[in-house]
């Protein structure tokens, strides 16, 4: 069964890569670049993000009170608030409002079929409002151009902000030419837009009811905020005399002043614009006159009662002809609020930055990386909360935990963690599979049965590697044998097109012991210090032998040891427990939790002795610096975080403190190098130190700006994701392929590049190590 669904997933992803990937990538990556530029140009961006986050935390905390506050405010303005428990409840209420309003209108001798115009709203997508209204005989027209294209094409949104991002201009032209049969076929975006504007403009002026979403709702004034670029939301809200706004309860914020940071940041994070074209803040019913286009000779200011008073005249209840309903949707949100792990999802302002910054999303779009309604990294939280875990399970594995979205999110949601948590829950709710026996013996994890065997295998890769190293090279020959690859693919889902890691018989820890352990290392460091006659740095390092450095990529470990010694720092390489990174990436939180505790216990004495923990593999360091906050007591987390470093960051520190770079392999000052940092390393802001060290040592590095290598630990090994992994990796490969030398910090990044470019891609430390460790 596992195999069939893997093949199914692989087919679906291949299809999306071919049909929608190109259009999505063009737009999503463009928005992401613009966001980056705008964030960098905004001096107070961090303060804005922190403030926005704090407001959301507070608002969700006080949500029940805010619901009462907004009810009072809207009622005082002359409108109505309805809190809907679920989709059916909300849909029935909206249908009622539309029917009542049309009946009133019919008395005045108007239309037969009630007609509704809508502006874009993911929340109404969530409840399938259009279908529900259509079932009641109500005509619904989407007026956001993207949404309207989808309505005409009978398609679904592929992005929460740009819903028709997957459809190219040519495809829209073809669709419209077929559907509307114009005299002159449409071709340009200009022609298409003009046609859409005129067509929709007429429908808007005739509509009975306007339905909008709301980006934010200010509780104490009853103010709906709509953020758009087209202006359709303004028209939908103001033209018909009845306005229904449908918003999730999480959209409430306490006061008008809380709105400011959101108005400031939402367009920056969504598209990189400084501010959106229209930020509409309405406290309906508004004073604006209703527009009755079928009485073209009546002044819009009506019978003059309000109009005569002119601008600024308000009695607080708006135009008497106006009717306003605010529908606040629960649909699982109040339960999410009680859920310590999912609660953060409610802070989301739906800007789509997590989608745009995600390499996998850029390749497949929201039809692959998405559930029933929502898409992108945060969709896992939304889908699990509003539609249930099964919907999230469909696509949750597409989040590789690369953390690119973490710095993009305007409300600082730990999106990768939400994905890890939901993956863990999905694992736990699955039925045990028939291949469990295969991995049971190999996998001393803390997980209950039911976990996918492939996930269990990769989650326990440390144990696997140890066993494979002990039996190398036989294990490597075996693993490469055709029948074995077929079995691995069938049982564990490891794609047979992917090269397997070659396990080394002599691990880094063994090598270090054999050359004399810490005593020998101290001697070497002392000699080096004496030779250079430089400053006494008085540091000692525990080099963390992560799984790959210890068993597979042993050379980079040796290079790290020799580099540190050459700079006068003695090293120890004890046999330490796994960091939990592998388990986390498979959603095995209980296992990771145990491993974190064991690792901390194993290094506690070193930390007390003032030794620094230095890590080669960025993803293991990222576990210590990010996820351990949730797995260890705060003091332990802080202690380890403050005293652990990425290898090149550490070398940078040594050089800054007087160590002598001439002890290393230095370039001639201009030797060009392409350097690909690692996603999680970038999030930790640790790309710069590597670049600085390379520069100090006489190289001229250029950095890649590709989002990801696509490998992401185990992701690229998996049969269902192999092609996606290669698609993402190709973008990086094209960026760096012309350089004579390419270095990469992550094992998977290096492996992916080596496979795609068929050449050596060492870790930067191998380049720097004395006497050219580099092979």
């Amino acid at each position, binding site marked *: 069964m596992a195999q069939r669904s893997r093949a199914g997933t692989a087919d679906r992803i291949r299809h999306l890569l071919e049909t929608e990937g190109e259009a999505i990538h063009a737009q999503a990556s463009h928005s992401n670049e613009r966001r980056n530029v705008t964030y960098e140009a905004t001096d107070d961006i961090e303060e804005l993000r922190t403030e926005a986050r704090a407001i959301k935390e507070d608002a969700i905390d006080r949500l029940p009170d805010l619901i009462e506050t907004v009810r009072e405010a809207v009622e005082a303005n002359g409108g109505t608030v309805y809190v809907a428990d679920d989709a059916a409840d909300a849909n029935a209420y909206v249908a009622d409002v539309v029917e009542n309003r049309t009946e009133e209108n019919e008395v005045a001798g108007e239309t037969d079929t009630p007609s509704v115009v809508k502006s874009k709203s993911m929340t109404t997508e969530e409840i399938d409002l259009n279908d529900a209204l259509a079932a009641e005989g109500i005509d619904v027209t989407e007026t956001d151009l993207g949404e309207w294209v989808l309505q005409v094409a009978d398609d679904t949104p592929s992005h929460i902000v740009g819903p028709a991002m997957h459809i190219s201009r*040519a495809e829209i032209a073809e669709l419209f030419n077929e559907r509307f049969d114009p005299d002159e076929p449409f071709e340009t*975006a200009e022609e298409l837009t003009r046609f859409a504007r005129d067509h929709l403009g007429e429908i808007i002026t005739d509509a009975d009811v306007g339905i909008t979403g709301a980006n934010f709702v200010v509780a104490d004034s009853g103010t709906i905020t709509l953020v758009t670029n087209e202006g359709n939301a303004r028209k939908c809200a103001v033209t018909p005399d009845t306005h229904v706004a449908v918003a999730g309860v999480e959209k409430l914020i306490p006061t008008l002043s809380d709105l400011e940071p959101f108005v400031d940041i939402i367009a920056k994070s969504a598209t990189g614009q400084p501010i959106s074209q229209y930020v509409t803040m309405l406290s309906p019913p508004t004073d604006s006159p209703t527009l009755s286009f079928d009485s073209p000779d009546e002044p*819009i200011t009506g019978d003059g009662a309000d109009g005569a008073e002119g601008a600024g005249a308000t009695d607080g209840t708006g135009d008497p002809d106006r009717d306003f309903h605010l529908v606040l949707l629960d649909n699982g949100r109040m339960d999410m609020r009680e859920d310590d792990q999912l609660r953060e999802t409610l802070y989301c302002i739906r800007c789509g930055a997590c989608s745009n910054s995600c390499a996998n999303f850029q390749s497949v779009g929201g039809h692959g990386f998405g559930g029933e309604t929502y898409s992108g990294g945060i969709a896992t939280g939304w889908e699990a909360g509003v539609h249930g875990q099964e919907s999230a399970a469909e696509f949750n594995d597409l989040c590789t935990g690369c953390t690119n979205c973490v710095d993009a999110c305007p409300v600082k949601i730990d999106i990768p963690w939400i994905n890890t948590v939901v993956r863990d829950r999905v694992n736990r709710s699955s039925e045990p599979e028939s291949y469990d026996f295969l991995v049971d013996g190999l996998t001393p994890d803390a997980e209950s049965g039911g976990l996918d065997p492939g996930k269990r295998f990769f989650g326990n890769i440390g144990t696997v590697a140890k066993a494979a190293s002990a039996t190398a090279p036989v294990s490597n020959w075996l693993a490469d044998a055709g029948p074995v690859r077929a079995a691995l693919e069938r049982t564990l889902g490891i794609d047979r097109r992917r090269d397997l890691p070659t396990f080394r018989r002599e691990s880094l820890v063994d090598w270090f012991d054999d050359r004399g352990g810490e005593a020998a290392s101290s001697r070497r460091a002392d000699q080096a210090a004496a030779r250079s006659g430089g400053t006494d740095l008085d540091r000692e390092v525990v080099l963390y032998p992560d799984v790959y450095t210890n068993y597979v990529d042993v050379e980079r470990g040796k290079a790290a040891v020799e580099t540190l010694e050459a700079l006068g720092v003695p090293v120890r390489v004890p046999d330490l427990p796994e960091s939990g990174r592998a388990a986390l990436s498979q959603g095995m939180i209980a296992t990771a939790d145990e491993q974190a505790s064991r690792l901390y216990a194993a290094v506690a004495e070193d930390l007390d002795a003032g030794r620094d923990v230095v890590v080669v593999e960025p993803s293991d360091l990222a576990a210590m610096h990010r996820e351990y906050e949730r797995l260890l007591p705060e003091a332990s987390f802080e202690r380890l975080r403050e005293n652990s470093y990425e290898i090149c960051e550490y070398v940078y520190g040594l050089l800054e403190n007087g160590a002598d770079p001439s002890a290393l392999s230095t370039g001639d000052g201009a030797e060009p190098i392409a350097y690909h940092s690692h996603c999680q390393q970038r999030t930790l802001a640790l790309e710069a130190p590597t670049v600085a060290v390379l520069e100090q040592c006489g190289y001229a590095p250029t950095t890649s700006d590709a989002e990801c290598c696509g490998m992401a630990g185990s992701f690229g090994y998996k049969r269902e994701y192999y092609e996606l992994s290669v698609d993402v990796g190709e973008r990086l490969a094209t960026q760096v392929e012309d350089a004579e030398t390419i270095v990469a910090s992550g094992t998977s990044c290096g492996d992916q590049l080596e496979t795609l470019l068929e050449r050596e891609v060492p870790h930067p430390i191998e380049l720097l190590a004395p006497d050219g460790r580099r092979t």
Partner: protein
Amino acid sequence: MTVDTVGRFERALEGLEVGLERVSAADASERIERIVEEPAVGASLPFEGVSLPASVTTEPTAGELEAARTGVTPVGFAVAEYGTVAVESTADGAEPISLYPDRHVAVVAESDVVPDLSAGFERLAEGFDAGRDSVVFATGRSATADMGDLVHGVHGPGDVDVIVLEDR
């Protein structure tokens, strides 16, 4: 407001391809007349000594609104930092008049041009307290990229001009 603030406003508008003209209250009517494309509709201007030219129809009918090429409205204030004008939803229809016609001419007193968004929110809060609690921050021209390329003038105006009253 300082000249600098208006200068900043002007630069922001330039980036948005929105024209800015400074004019004295006495000359405003004539300048508006020159800028509008007829037929034009408008919401009356609350600035002392400034009135709309006769060619601009106030209290328009729905038919006149639909047919208009230009809508002239006062705005409560403007935010220099982003080139934003604050259109208030008033009973005389400033909101639809600024939205439906292809061109929007926004008239603002120089003293109402505030430097940044924070100052804009202060003004917004004052207005809310006074009952003016429906406001649109409009920045530049209506735009969409949904049809495969950036196009201006979708549901809202594709052309915007701002007139700053120097002595108001």
